[in-house]
């Protein structure tokens, strides 16, 4: 397994060098998105304005996360971050966001193998977090902006700077591979005896 440290701007070439199972860290600007923020981002006047802002900041990385935040006077502080399952956003929202914002890195949880063909075309990868919970929140340097707090603090869209943010494991790369899809073949072979005994058929 290879290790990469990514610093924006992320070219298509850099992203194409990432392969499933590789570890990566990221130093730069990231924004969070959950389903409510996705819908507003992709389908409203406010969304068009914020998209411009994100492009202006050169943001290429999206984290599927509702952070634990704390208000300190005028400032917001991120105390903790755990991922939301990426499939919860749904392939349509994700592909639309990648296309319209030119994203190169989606961070989350679980498999996005349903988007593997799309990632080949778009030059973007899906990476997943380590652990059930980890110290990502402690690697956030500064919250740049929090938008749409009316959606509730976890569902709001947070833009932040992070340093050595990670590690993340590449789950779906630009070559049509998925870590979970690959692992699934090994798993099916190994689990045969117990599945047969109980009459369980897998797709």
């Amino acid at each position, binding site marked *: 397994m290879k290790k990469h440290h990514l610093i924006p701007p992320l070219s298509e070439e850099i992203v194409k060098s990432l392969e499933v199972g590789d570890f990566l860290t990221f130093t730069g600007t990231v924004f969070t998105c959950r389903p409510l923020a996705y819908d507003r981002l992709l389908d409203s006047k406010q969304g068009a304005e914020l998209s411009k802002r994100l492009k202006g900041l050169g943001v290429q990385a999206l984290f599927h996360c509702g952070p634990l935040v704390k208000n300190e006077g005028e400032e917001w502080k991120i105390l903790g971050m755990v991922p939301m399952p990426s499939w919860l956003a749904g392939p349509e929202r994700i592909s639309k966001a990648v296309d319209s914002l030119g994203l190169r890195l989606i961070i989350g949880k679980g498999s996005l193998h349903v988007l593997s063909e799309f990632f080949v075309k778009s030059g973007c990868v899906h990476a997943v977090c*380590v652990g*059930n919970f980890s110290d990502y929140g402690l690697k956030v340097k500064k919250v740049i902006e929090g938008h749409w707090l009316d959606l*509730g603090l*976890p569902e709001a869209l947070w833009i932040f700077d992070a340093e050595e943010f990670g590690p993340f494991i590449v789950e779906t790369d630009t070559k049509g591979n998925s870590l979970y899809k690959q692992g*699934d073949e090994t798993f099916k072979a190994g689990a045969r005896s117990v599945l047969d005994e109980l009459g369980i058929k897998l797709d």
Partner: protein
Amino acid sequence: MLSQAVIEETVVNLWKKNQFDLPEDFKSTLKERYESETSELGKVHLKANIDMVEKASKLGIPFCADTGFLGYYIILGTKVIDQVEGGYKALEETLKRATARVTSEIPLRPNAVHPLTRHNPNNNLGPGSPDLKVKLLQDADFIEITNVAYGGGPELVGSKFTVLSPTAGEKGVRKFVLECSLQLIRMGATCSPNVVGIGLGGTFDRCVRLSKEAAILRPIGDRNPDEELARLEEIIMDDISKLKLGPMGMGGLTSAFDVHIEMAYCHMATLPVAVYLQCSAMRRTTARMYADGRVENVAKSCWLRG
């Protein structure tokens, strides 16, 4: 007289304890499984958990940023019930106040929202939030409160209910639990390893409730006192381990930490089964409070066997 002030402070402290640190059974199991895990990625995941718990307890921050949907299991001893200041209504108000207080003070993530409008009051209060469950315990001279936080993983994808054919038997139950584990852990849908809680029998609502209580209120390693159920717990644990789905479903020996079954009689036309996959971010703490204001932390709630 047991004052509401003592209850509030106790409950706030229970939250701090369970959000900043894992219960002992989870902590030691995590370390044991990290040692015995052979998958490289599996080890990475378990190590991340161990490291984060250490950091969080030192810093006094929640170890999992999904600080959960907050709930209380309340046991009212009949000998002390008339000595609670303001009675049960006041106790309920205290628990709500403590919930909003820890949400802003610790802080916890405001997770409770309206199901349709998605309105979030940002204080974890609303109809059904916090989740309160109450039982009476004959002749007990204490009030026991267990604070639990239900993570989004188990609530979103980690829970299933079905009614099997009445004669599906043990094999039918094993098959359903294994199908759930596959569906939920495979492809990393929910955070594994889990404690698998199984509600066996009961009415529709009781079955679901038992699966959750089995997963959350019994420590890892605890076996059902009914020998047949204890045997089935071990068989199902073995079934799930054979899948080798591993931490976060990326392969490995550690797919589940334990399997707990709670049973109740059901209508003869049915065989209800519910499954609740508690993630490794267990937030569970219990304290007993006495009429003289004494507070005692206890390792295991008497909710299931009181």
